[in-house]
Structure formats: C-alpha cells, structure tokens
C-alpha cells in the first residue's frame, strides 16, 4: 500500500506447544486460553472435539427463535435457565420511547423472544426493562461476564466479553439450541495466538484504531481457528471499555475468541455490578482471577507484534474490514496486490464504494455518521465523540445519529449532559439497539449513501441496499459528521 506508515506486523514462528518451557519448576507453562478452556472441559469427544461447559448463555431475538422452535419440536427443555439471559437488541426500534410495536417489522421476532423467555423462565431484559441493550454491551455492564468464565451467545461478536478475561464464544442457531438443551458446546479446540500491541497509543487514538490496524495487517482470515490473546503495553494501558472494543472485532480477524488477561482495572470495573460476586466472594474471586494470565514462556502458535507509536487514525475504504488504511493514506491501487484474488476483490470493492485508487481518504464527503454498536456504543465512546462535538454543528445535509449500546449507557450519558451536546449539534439521540450496524430495523442508510460508522462491518449492503460504509473510531466519526467529510482528528486537535 502506498503509505508512509512503518510496516507494523512481524510474525514470529511459535514454540512447540507440547513441550512447554517449564524451566526449573517442571510445571507446564500455560496460556490464558488453555487455563480457562481446560477448566471448562467436560470431556474430549470421540471425534476429537471438546465438550465445553457454558457458564452463561445470552440470547437475542434474531438467532434464538428457530432454536426454541426446534427444541419444542424435539420435546426438549432448557437445561439451566438460571444461567441464561435474554434481551432484544437487533430488530428493536431505536426511536426514543419505543416499545415492541414501534418497528412493525420486528414484532414477530420480539414477541417470540419474550414468549420463549417467559415459557422457560429465562430472565428477559427486553425493551420494557431499564437493563435492555446490545448483548455484548449488557453482558459486561451487568457483571454477567467475568474473568475466567465461558459465555456463549448466538452472535459472532460475543468475543467482546474477552475484554474482561472471559471466553466469549459466538455461535450459530443450532449451537444456541445445543446450549439451551445441554448447557455445553462441542467445539474444536482453537489454537492460541497472540497479538501484542507495543509502544504507546498516540493522543486521540483508541482501541478501535488498534484493532482495525491489526485486521489490516493480519487479514480477515488471519485468526481463523484461533483464540487470540491481546497483550502488550498498549493493551495494558487501555481502559476496560477499550479492551471490550478490541476483543469485539476478533471475528473480523476470523477468530471466534479474543481476550485480554484481567487486571486491577478489570476487578474495579466489575465490583458492585448486578451479577458480579459480592463481599467476601468477590475477594475470593479476585484472588483466583489474578492467576488468569499466560505463564511466562507459554507457547503460542503465532505471535504478532503491532507497533502503535506512529499509528494514524484508521478508516476503512473497501468492503471488508481488512480494507483499511491510515486516514492520511490514499486509496490503494488494486494492481499493487500480489495475490490475484485480493486484486479482484479490491477492484470490486472500489467499484462498489465508488472510489478511485490514489484518492486521499481525508476529504471524502459523507452523508451519514453513525455512532453506536457493540463495538463503540459504550459510555467512553460517547464521551470521546462528545468531546469532539461540543459547541459545534453537524454539517448541512449530513444525517448524524448516536445510538447508545444500552439503556444504562444512555442514562449515564444523560447524567453527564452528553445528550445535550449531541442534540445541540444536530445529532439524533436514540434508544439502545443495534440500529444502523446491521439495519434490520428502520435505521437504514439509503442506496448510494456514504456512511462513516463506529460499527464493525463494512460489507456491501450492510447498512442498507447499496449503502457504503467506512469504519472508524468514535472521535473520527464525530469529526466527520461536523465537517461533512472524512478528516484527520490529529489536525483538528492542533488547529
């Protein structure tokens, strides 16, 4: 890629995992992944897969309806409803004050979620509950996810909870049914790999820039079959919410699992949350959580370093998350790719995005700015955006919307007055849900529109038929909303 950025990734071949550099002690050195996985291993199955106990199961309306239907047809029940929690997030309306009927197209699936939860006595935090929100936002927020637990959810971004040192496993509907019936999953054991973010994160940049950079470096299949541990000085420096963002996009690396070793910040984050342990139980938990890290010398099949010191704000230009560059870069020429498949795909992406090679990313006009999603719909994301927006106005003809990741985030933001900053600037201030990340409710980007978004997928038609998506951090999206075009937030800060 035509770029001044230093080459950031280098790959170090792994050690032999079977040996374990036990050193003097004779105790095998284990990765964090192995510690958690092995503690949940019920048995190794005849076909080589592992049967893993699931501590927490989170349900949402779009991937559970058929699972419940099949369960009923087979005459099976829910094995451990107390370990199960349901919400409504994907297809809900985000209009302020909405209810289940506000989005007519969502009524069927929302009603099924509520009815299925009621029937099986599963906790249901639907749109009528103050705890409603996107599955991956509420699972950490409620303390449902905690270090060392295995949490399954019928959604590919379940790895988000890895930011707390949990194993979040995204599953399909048949697997949802399997967990409902048995509280386990039969899984092939993934290979532990590590991505180390080294150095310091430049001012104004956030976890979103880090993970987009990693996806650009490793590709959307780079983590296939893997469990990714994020480590390094930059990750240690990240607040918990940033780690959730980092782990969220593991699936964009092709990995089902991504996590960060828990530390004092994690413990502070969890203390007092609804499903976190309390009192002496919390202290006992903390003592155990402190051992949840990869041992020195533990073996990874791949160990990748990403240098952060000179990282630029990242923005995608194409139709997969690996089509990403620094905001100060130019759109690459597909001809510059060695691989024929990649060349073709990039050319097709540019046609879809209506972009030409060599054009700078900075300055591209945008029609819509979307702040929200399970990637960047938390309080700190809204704070970062509000800091950019304060006292300014959204550019004419730009539709700008903020959709908090949960109703709790919305309340916290309002307590800080953020809603007024956004509204005064011309942003819509909506209720919690997936919204324009997946656009299966009424929040749809029109054909041909160009949207800059804090979400995680820039696929063709993702935000609506014919819509075009650029992924970026909350600050970059907010700045673009004001300018009406993609801007480099570092220059804004200097100006």
């Amino acid at each position: 890629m035509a770029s001044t950025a230093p080459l950031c990734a280098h790959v170090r071949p792994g050690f032999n995992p079977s040996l374990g550099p036990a050193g003097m002690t004779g105790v095998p050195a284990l990765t964090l992944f192995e510690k958690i996985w092995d503690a949940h291993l019920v048995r190794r199955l005849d076909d080589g897969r592992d049967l893993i106990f699931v501590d927490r199961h989170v349900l949402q309306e779009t991937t559970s309806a058929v699972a419940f239907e099949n369960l009923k047809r087979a005459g099976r029940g829910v094995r451990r409803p107390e370990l199960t929690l349901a919400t409504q997030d994907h297809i809900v309306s985000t209009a302020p004050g909405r209810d289940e009927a506000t989005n007519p197209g969502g009524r069927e699936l929302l009603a099924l979620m509520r009815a299925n939860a009621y029937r099986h006595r599963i906790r249901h935090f639907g749109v009528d509950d103050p705890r409603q929100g996107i599955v991956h936002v509420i699972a950490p927020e409620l303390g449902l996810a905690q270090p060392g637990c295995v949490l399954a959810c019928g959604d590919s971004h379940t790895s988000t909870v890895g930011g707390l040192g949990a194993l979040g496993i995204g599953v399909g509907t048949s697997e949802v049914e399997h967990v409902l019936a048995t509280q386990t999953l039969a899984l092939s054991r993934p290979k532990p790999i590590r991505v180390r973010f080294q150095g310091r994160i430049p001012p104004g940049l956030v976890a979103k820039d880090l993970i987009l950079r990693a996806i650009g470096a490793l590709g959307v299949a780079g983590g296939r079959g893997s469990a990714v541990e994020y480590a390094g000085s930059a990750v240690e420096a990240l607040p918990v919410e940033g780690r959730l963002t980092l782990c969220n996009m593991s699936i964009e690396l092709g990995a089902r699992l991504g996590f960060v070793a828990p530390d004092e910040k994690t413990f502070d984050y969890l203390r007092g949350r609804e499903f976190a342990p309390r009192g002496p139980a919390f202290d006992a938990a903390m003592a155990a959580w402190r051992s949840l890290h990869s041992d020195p010398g533990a073996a990874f099949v791949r160990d990748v370093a990403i240098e952060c010191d000179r990282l630029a704000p990242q923005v995608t230009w194409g139709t997969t998350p690996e089509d990403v560059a620094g905001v100060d870069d130019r759109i690459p020429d597909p001809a510059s790719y060695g691989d024929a498949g990649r060349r073709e795909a990039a050319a097709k992406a540019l046609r879809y995005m209506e972009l030409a090679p060599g054009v700078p990313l900075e300055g591209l006009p945008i029609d819509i700015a979307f702040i929200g999603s399970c990637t960047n719909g938390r309080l700190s994301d809204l704070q970062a955006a509000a800091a950019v927006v304060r006292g300014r106005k959204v550019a004419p003809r730009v539709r700008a919307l903020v959709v908090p990741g949960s109703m709790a985030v919305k309340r916290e933001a309002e307590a800080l007055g953020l809603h007024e900053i956004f509204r005064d600037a011309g942003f819509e201030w909506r209720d919690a849900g997936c919204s324009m990340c997946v656009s299966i409710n009424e929040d749809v980007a029109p054909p041909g529109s160009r949207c800059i978004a804090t979400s995680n997928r820039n696929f063709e038609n993702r935000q609506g038929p014919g819509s075009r998506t650029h992924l970026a951090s909350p600050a970059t999206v907010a700045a673009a909303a004001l300018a009406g075009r993609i801007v480099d937030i570092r220059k804004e800060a200097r100006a």
Partner: protein
Amino acid sequence: MRRPVSTVVGTLAAMPAPNINTDQIIPSAWLRTATADLGNGLFGSQRYDEAGSERPDFILNQPGWRNARILLAGENFGCGSSREAAVWALVQFGVGCVLAPSFADIFYENAFRNGLVAGVIDADAFEDLRRAAAAGPASYAVDLASGTITGPDGTRWAVSVPASRARALMRGDDEIAITLAMQPEIDAHFDRSRAATPWLFPESLMERPSR
C-alpha cells in the same frame, strides 16, 4: 435424527471469490421473520436488482446453473456474521455441498449441523474445478465415503471432510441427543465447578426470575 447424507450429485456452480460473507449469502432483508423463504433470498443482493428482478448476469440466474447442487467458493467462505440462515438458505435453495479451500469457523460448524457438506479442497483442485465449471454447467458427484468429487468425464479430486464429521453426516446424527446422553457427566462438572469457583454462580444469578 437428521436425514443421512452420503452423496451430493448435481450441477457445480463456481463463485470463486475469497471471503464471501454470510451477509452476502443471506442479506438481512430476509432475516426479519422466522418464516422467510430463505432459498429465495440466497445471495439476494447479487441475485436481484433494486426492483426485485433477477440480474441475468448472476451465475445462479443463468440457464443450467439455476438448480446448482454443489457450490465452488474461494477461501474463507462464510466469514462474518454467525447467522445460520446462511446455511439454511443454501440448503433450501438446494445446495448440498460447498467446496472451498477454507471455511470460516462458525459457518463450518453451522453447515454440518444442517447436513450441508463443507468440503475442503486443495489449490490445484480449486483451479481445475473453477476452470471446468466456467466451461459450462455439468453434473458432478461428491462422495463422503471416499472423500472425492467426480467430474462428468470421470476425473476425481480429493474432498477433505474430517472422518468423524463424514460419519456423523452419513449416520444422520442428532448431536443434541448424543450430548444429552452425557448429562450425568455434565452435571458432575457443574457441581465441581460450583464448589471450586462459587463466585461464578452468585445468588443473584442462581435465583430464577419469578413470573
């Protein structure tokens, strides 16, 4: 018990691009109800134009390929969203087997649970089959027992499906029934885990909600 699958015979269609994601396989427009016609929605954004008419240049709209049973795809097929509707859409359309150099993890799991054969092929087989498919529609046969695909002229290529998965497909295993037979072991695991790490199961969680 699911319907056993041991062979898939029919037209081979090639969509050889890498990283075909599940949003492409079944666009979200078909995910708004529990009863949508997913076979009709397969590759919906590519298959139909804005007015809902078929785009004649799309492979599955072309004569000879409209009833494809075997799909040849590029690397990392099925990446992105976990939506199992991607597999259901392929199955409901009539596709019984997808061949690709590699598959995304969640799609791969979803496929076998629905009797869809996800067969891995090597780079040479991919190139050969791609060329053969481009020459025109023809019938191929995938056989799980021998782990092969056979072309109209008798040429064979290896199709890799792990032996345990192939057996499960050929028997039509119900995976949940198999796991349920291990329930005592699972319960014992839970009891041990609750004793060793009680904080994982705090009272606030273990109390079931009242109606």
